């Protein structure tokens, strides 16, 4: 495992932790902002996992660039939706 791989794994774990904390609190207070943020951070985690898999696991003939970047983009969109539309009150 190279340093880059380790870093992407750490990023994935951090995002996952954030998503988990947001989900836990969402179940207590039911605030939609938390749900969308959770989805956003989970997507970010998935994006980092795909990065790790792409670089460390899969052979060079397979390229996950398109699914990776789509996932990252959807994660950002979910986060933005939540932070703008659901942060109302």
């Amino acid at each position, binding site marked *: 495992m190279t340093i880059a791989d380790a870093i992407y794994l750490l990023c994935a774990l951090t995002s996952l932790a954030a998503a988990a904390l947001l989900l836990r609190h969402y179940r207590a207070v039911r605030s939609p902002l938390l749900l969308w943020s959770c989805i956003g951070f989970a997507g970010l985690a998935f994006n980092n996992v795909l*990065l790790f898999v792409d670089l460390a696991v899969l052979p060079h003939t397979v390229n996950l660039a398109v699914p990776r970047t789509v996932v990252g983009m959807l994660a950002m969109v979910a986060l933005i939706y939540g932070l703008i539309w659901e942060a109302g009150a």
Partner: protein
Amino acid sequence: MSESQVAFFQGISTAGSFVVALIFLRFWRESHDRLFAFFGAAFATLAVSWTLLGLTSPEDETRPYLYAIRLVAFLLLIAGIVDKNRGTQ
């Protein structure tokens, strides 16, 4: 064909990440909660890393400065969470 798709999606993610950073910084101004400052800085850093990625080589995430910057972004997230739990009154 897929290279420009990747660049397109990365571009959206990058712009999205800047927007998320701005929203978190605004939350920080509203609530004076330092967590949002950390998160805003984290997403701004993430946006910077994606910008550099997009401007240099959109599909190659193995360059040291790229993953170093991403590491900083996620360390900022961790720092924010740790700071939140240090329990300052």
